[in-house]
């Protein structure tokens, strides 16, 4: 039943907007965050938006947070007025799933600085954006156009030092803020597979 629902939602969304593609308008979505608030992407038009596919049990995500690199980036971008939407698409049967309470605790303990943590346990947003891995990053410009789709950085390894890697998200946003074209618009995302419902 749930699977059918997800499928239908995904298909409806996919029909409404073309598949996610760099240089085209980013597909809009409406979702709920862990505080029960409704998050609608198009509400953020006029602002740069970062979307992050997240699963803290995945060593690749964990590496970005454990080293503090992701939080530093979030803090830096928040100061520049960038919206950061964290999407957790882990299905409820997987033990990496987080209830709202667990998610709030994790957000506090990890000192995350994000606009919203979207509970996407249905996988609707994940499928809409063809999120493959955790992490999988997207950057949307002020006009709602997708300008970056891919990996967080150029080191596909769960143990590297992110401060020494080339971060594609900060690279894209620096370029946007400077009014220049995004240097690397698309890369192959790396990480664990997104734990969608079967």
């Amino acid at each position, binding site marked *: 039943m749930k699977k059918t629902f997800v499928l239908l939602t995904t298909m409806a969304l996919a029909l409404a907007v073309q598949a996610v*593609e*760099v240089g085209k308008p980013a597909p809009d979505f409406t979702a709920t965050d862990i505080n029960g608030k409704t998050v609608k992407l198009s509400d953020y038009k006029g602002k740069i938006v970062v979307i992050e596919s997240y699963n*803290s*049990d*995945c*060593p690749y995500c*964990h590496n970005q947070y*454990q080293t503090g690199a992701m939080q530093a980036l979030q803090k830096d971008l928040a100061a520049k007025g960038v919206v950061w939407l964290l999407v957790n698409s882990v299905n409820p049967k*997987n*033990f*990496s799933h987080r209830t709202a309470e667990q998610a709030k605790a994790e957000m506090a303990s990890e000192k995350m600085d994000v606009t919203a943590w979207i509970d996407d346990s249905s996988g609707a947003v994940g*499928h809409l954006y*063809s999120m*493959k*891995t955790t992490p999988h990053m997207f950057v949307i410009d002020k006009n709602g156009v997708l300008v970056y789709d*891919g990996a967080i950085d150029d080191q*596909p*390894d*769960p*143990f590297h030092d992110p401060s020494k890697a080339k971060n594609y998200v900060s690279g894209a946003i620096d370029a946007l803020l400077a009014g220049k074209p995004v240097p*690397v*618009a*698309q*890369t*192959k*995302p*790396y*990480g*664990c*597979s*997104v*734990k*969608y419902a*079967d």
Partner: protein
Amino acid sequence: MRRIGIFLAACFCLAAFTANAAHTQVNLLLSADTARPGDTVLAGVDMKMEPGWHTYWKNPGEAGMATKIEWQLPPGVTAGEIQWPLPEKLPPAEVTTYGYNDEVMLIVPLTLATNLSPGPLDLKAKVSWLECKEVCIPGSVDVAASLNAGMETKASAVAAAIEAWKKQVPTLFDLSVSAWWEKPANDDTRPLIISFPTKRISAEVASADFFPNAYEQFEVQAPTETNLKDGEIRLRKFVKKFSGDWPNEISGVFLYHAPHYGTNAFEIKFHVSSNEPAGETTSRTGVAPVSNLSGQNTATGRMPVLPLMLLYAFIGGLILNVMPCVLPVIALKILGFINHAQHEPRRVRALGLIYAAGVLASFLALAAVVISVKAAGHHAGWGMQFGSPEFIVCLTTLIMLVALNLFGVFEVTLGGRTLSAAGQLAAKQGAAGAFFNGLLATALATPCTAPFLAPALGFAFAQKSSLIFLIFLFVGLGLAAPYVVLSWNSAWLKFLPKPGAWMEKFKIAMGFPMLLTAVWLFNLAADDYGTNVLWLGVFLVLMSFAAWIFGEFVQRGRAGKDIALVIVFLLAVGGYAFALESQLHWREPVTVPDSAGTSRAAPDGIAWQPWSPEAVAQARATGRPVLVDFTANWCLTCQVNKKIAIEIPSVRKKLKEINAVALVGDYTHFPDSITAELNRFNRAGVPLVLVYPKNSEAEPIVLPAVLTPGIVLDALDGAAH
């Protein structure tokens, strides 16, 4: 229990990531306990995953991480690239990955330097991987194994297991793939059509797929639409581009599944055209153009047609009559014909036909073996049965007994009967003898691939079962033809010498080439049994003794025949049980890992290096001509070629002059990589000698099966320009 473990891991996951993962057990295995300097030893990194957990292939797919091996090796030991067994496509469909469930063994060739000093070597490696089930956990462990550098190559207890995994590694194969973009690029994803001609695939293909290698700038996505057409397999895949231009070359693994044949997989590399090639080129067979030197009429570059191949098969069979390994049997056959020429022509004709039937029967049996071997998923090679140690032991014994028979130690025909009974029996014996001659000629012809036979058989191995039968039938007809013709045209029989007392002397003289054949076979057995082959010798002596008692006391004796027969029986059974079973362990030969020791260089001979596709590519990249000799211990033609046309001063000098690289591929134990290469040149067996010109664009020159110094020197001259 594990659920609790997972629960705990989930709670304390943050601390758990740096610890070793517990769901994959890793061991380092070696194919040899002791190896000589210059040998290549196979290392197997064996990974056993708990149920539900998997690790990844060299291209993990849309998520995951390829397993890494970082070697810490003593000086003089170098590790090659990881050879990855064929992975599985792992669900879910939205994030497809390539990996292994339950167990995988990653194979790494370790090469010992030729100047390595003897003694123990500690081989260490750090293996890191990502294992996933409901979660992903990175794992890493230090593994170690020790190898002894010594004077001999001694296979380890796990050599067979490593070989078994190595067989799962897709081999390089030129399938002549064509690929093109279905349409111009509109966005970052573009449909790609990959077309595989099925002419090189003998079986009915039920499904097929392509597992791409990993690329940074683009990704060949996992979903595959398969379209099985007549003579072609078409795969439709999507390529997603991340950056740069659309790729014009893609490599990976092509695999297909055929009912009863299992799954076959090959390493392939193909060029992507901007649109579909014209009709004719899609069905291009990709047969390597064969140089005129070989005298084979394939100048058109097209697949040789069936009637032509059947003609080659027939001529090949004819030529087999004069190849070195059939000569001793010819002695037998000549004897047979002289014996029968005195009888009435009708009987001679009948015997000629029975001889032909014997040849054909054994060729058809051989075809059946080839087909069943193919069915087992192996790439069969001509001379296959000579790779089996058990076969060699049986054949050595048989040839030894034939030699003793020629010496007159015992008789095959029973004497001392009444005249009428003797006449009838002789008829029977004659028929049985003719049939047996046919069988023997076939068994001995196998390791010799005559010049015309090679392409015919190469063609046969890539065909359907019915065609394999047909080709083998024609080889058999060729082998039998001269004798059938002689027996029908009685006028020609008059050219044969008159029977006389000289025959007995001639018969005994012919026993010596037979004995030589036995010695050669014995030498082959030494490869498989090491110094233990002594017990095969003991067995042969015991059997010879039994044969003598049989001849002297059972056949020619007057009294005590029964006792003599019992002794013969005891000797045969006792010799078998003691020498073969308890001492030689003849059914469990010590197999030497393939390619081991092939890189040994004779003191002032040609500096042979082991063949591999990479070695060829490497040498050509530096602009040097390359001489490749595919050979095997059991291939007499190869040994003769080497003696008279390759390992000779003039060729050595020429190789130095033109700065050529000499590579040798040892086919004694049928390594798959060489089988694939032989198939690529449409050959089913060795010898195959190739000369790659200096100009790296030029096609290799394929030398004929029987070489003369002139042929080799001309080819090398041609390659240097």
